[in-house]
């Protein structure tokens, strides 16, 4: 069924009796060409692009829980491509371009809203760094705009420009950045993949790999064994656990990132705003809640909840740039488990086991990457060679020295 404004109107007038399920609930077959482990945003977008761009439809997506129950439903919904390094920026800009056409492409309302993202500048040194970042963005074909405090005051009068400790000197805008409706992204990809013949199998936990003579021949699941020519891990947050079943140790630690939403308010924030001196980012959802977050808790964990010191730290960050946030009541907070990699950048690569592929290490930047991650992973699975924008996202880069360390922090995952 094709969705359209006319369809909504027609169904509204005829009792909404014509809607059908957005995807099937098939039984797993005994064998597929490709089995994708993980029915989150990245797994579903991989399946979608495999079917749509590469014509591979004998594909299954195995999901342990329900579709989109992991980080695709837990993030702060920000989309942007304001990275620095050549290993990252072209990839994220490719993702941004896919976002811009996502709704037309999937025929699903993902509520992509290019309401802009702003990184605040608090020091002269930071301005220099952002000029460099803006130039790097231009090189990859992205947009960037440096603004001074006078212009910011006109656009965003509510920020604390004269904060004694962190005065605001300007900012770096990416006007094409913004937000999207995170669940709808998963649902749109699921519907698009399913309608092209991909089997999405929920409540199907992978419990082991069938590995013989260095080749992966399939997976063991809670619903029986499934053979596959290629097996694709796509379980960021649980990568450590799943890879351990294949005997792999990864350059990844699992950490928890908390997110917060306030009570619904009248339109207050025009776009996404990020603090440059601490770690704080905030936007306003279409329902009116202020959606915000900050640093990870900083210790290894697989629990989807964090502790109070970070709650305090995040709220202090908010108060430092936008004192009016102190008048809003916090409605909910939650946590999601992140694959924190050793250089803060992700992996889309083959493993040392034939037929076993790995996608993970998204740190806390996985949501914005959802379209390109799926596209590039599908490219790798279909052609056995990396997509041009993802050639550096290799698992062996720590051995070869080709790190993609945006912040220059070194192998300390909780600092990225």
């Amino acid at each position, binding site marked *: 069924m094709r969705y359209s404004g006319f369809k909504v109107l027609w169904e509204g007038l005829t009792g909404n009796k014509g809607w059908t399920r957005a995807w099937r609930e098939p039984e797993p077959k005994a064998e597929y060409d490709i089995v994708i482990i993980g029915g989150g945003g990245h797994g579903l977008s991989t399946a979608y692009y495999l079917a749509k761009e590469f014509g591979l439809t004998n594909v299954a997506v195995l999901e342990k829980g329900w579709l989109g129950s992991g980080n695709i439903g837990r993030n702060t919904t920000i989309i942007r491509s304001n990275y620095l390094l050549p290993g990252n920026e072209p990839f994220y800009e490719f993702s941004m371009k896919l976002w811009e056409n996502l709704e037309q492409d999937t025929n699903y309302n993902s509520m992509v809203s290019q309401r802009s993202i702003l990184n605040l500048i608090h020091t002269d040194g930071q301005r220099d760094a952002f000029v460099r970042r803006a130039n790097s963005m231009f090189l990859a074909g992205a947009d960037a705009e440096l603004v001074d405090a006078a212009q910011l005051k006109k656009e965003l009068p509510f920020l604390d420009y004269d904060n004694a400790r962190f005065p605001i000197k300007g900012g770096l805008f990416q006007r094409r950045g913004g937000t999207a409706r995170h669940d709808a992204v998963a649902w749109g990809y699921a519907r698009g993949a399913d309608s092209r013949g991909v089997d999405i199998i929920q409540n199907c936990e992978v419990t082991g790999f069938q590995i013989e003579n260095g080749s992966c021949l399939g997976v063991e699941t809670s619903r029986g064994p499934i053979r596959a020519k290629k097996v694709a891990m796509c379980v960021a947050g*649980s990568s*450590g*656990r799943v890879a351990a079943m294949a005997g792999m*140790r990864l350059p*990844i630690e*699992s950490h928890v990132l908390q997110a917060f939403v306030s009570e619904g308010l009248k339109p207050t924030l025009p776009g996404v705003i990020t603090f440059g001196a601490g770690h704080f980012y905030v936007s306003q959802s279409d329902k009116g809640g202020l959606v915000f977050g900050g640093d990870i808790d900083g210790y290894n964990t697989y*629990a989807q909840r964090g502790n109070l*010191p970070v709650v305090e730290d995040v709220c202090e960050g908010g108060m430092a740039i936008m004192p009016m946030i102190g008048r809003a009541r916090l409605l909910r907070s939650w946590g999601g488990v992140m694959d924190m990699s050793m250089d803060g950048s992700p992996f889309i690569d083959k493993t040392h086991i034939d037929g076993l592929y790995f996608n993970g290490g998204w740190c806390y930047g996985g949501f914005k990457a959802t379209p390109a991650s799926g596209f590039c992973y599908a490219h790798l699975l279909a052609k056995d060679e990396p997509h041009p924008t993802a050639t550096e996202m290799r698992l062996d880069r720590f051995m070869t020295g080709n790190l993609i360390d945006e912040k220059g922090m070194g192998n300390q*995952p909780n600092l990225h």
Partner: protein
Amino acid sequence: MIIDHPLLGPRDAAEFVYLGDAALIDRPDWQAADAMEQFHSYGYLRDNPAGQHQELWYHEQGDRSWLVVTRNTLTHEITAVELARDVARKRGRGK
């Protein structure tokens, strides 16, 4: 989280800085034939278990001692806290 410091008693985890897996105590031999592989694995690869995890915490806002904390990464329950010095000596380190 409360970390029961062996010398100072129960302290808030916010006083500590987290480093990572306590396997970092076991620095490889730089003269080994496969030192390159060993240091790659030491520096960059992690077991990252879901469950019991031994890890290094530094009491920065306290007595500046390094601790080995045994904590469950699924529940955050802490079951043992030792001085990293004692753990290293038990594993045969001289100092």
